[in-house]
């Protein structure tokens, strides 16, 4: 399954819940959720831990827009809108967490 997250883990429990409940698969961080994929953020350890169970992606246009293109965590794959579409197509189902 593809899990899409769009909220910062510092202000919302959504990513936490996703990591707690989901069995594995792909996670795509978009909009404010990209902060989770940046080096030095308070959530870094949890994301790193999650990488053993999930493949973590982050949407580059959202990273660039927030001025963090040079700070993407190692192990996170950045994708563009085309990569976003590829992920949706590649997975049999998808959950856009709110």
């Amino acid at each position, binding site marked *: 399954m593809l899990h899409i997250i769009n909220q910062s883990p510092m202000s919302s429990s959504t990513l936490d819940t996703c990591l707690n*409940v989901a*069995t594995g698969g792909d996670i795509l961080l978009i909009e404010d959720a990209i902060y989770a994929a940046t080096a030095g953020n308070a959530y870094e350890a949890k994301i790193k831990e999650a990488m053993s169970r999930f493949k973590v992606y982050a949407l580059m246009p959202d990273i660039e827009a927030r001025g963090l293109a040079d700070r993407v965590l190692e192990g996170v794959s950045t994708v563009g809108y085309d990569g976003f579409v590829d992920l949706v197509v590649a997975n049999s189902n998808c959950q856009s967490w709110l």
Partner: protein
Amino acid sequence: MSEEGIKKFMFVNRKAPYGTVYALESLEVVLITAAFDQDVSLAFLDDGVYQLKKGQQTKGIETKNFSPTYRALEGYDIEKLYVEKEAMEARGLTEDDLLVDVTVLTRAEMGALMDEQDVLLSF
């Protein structure tokens, strides 16, 4: 996918009622979806568990109390209601506090059930 043309729809509810409109919106979409003879289930995670709390009285906030409507779901042939055990416990609630019969699942069981779905809708 099970039978021809029938898909598994899961509505994932993670918000408390009244503070935002998500809970009510979810319920309305669920009722509409019931007309299409699909395999519908509802999951209550995090603050979504509060939607099912017994004894809601909304007169004081001048808002419609939609909690009785969860009890109508059975008549709409929607009988699969799942509650996340950890979320319920973290809020000091037990099954007796809920206004409908539910199946309580651990996070792991909930995650496995989500994997089986064709469509997941978040509210």
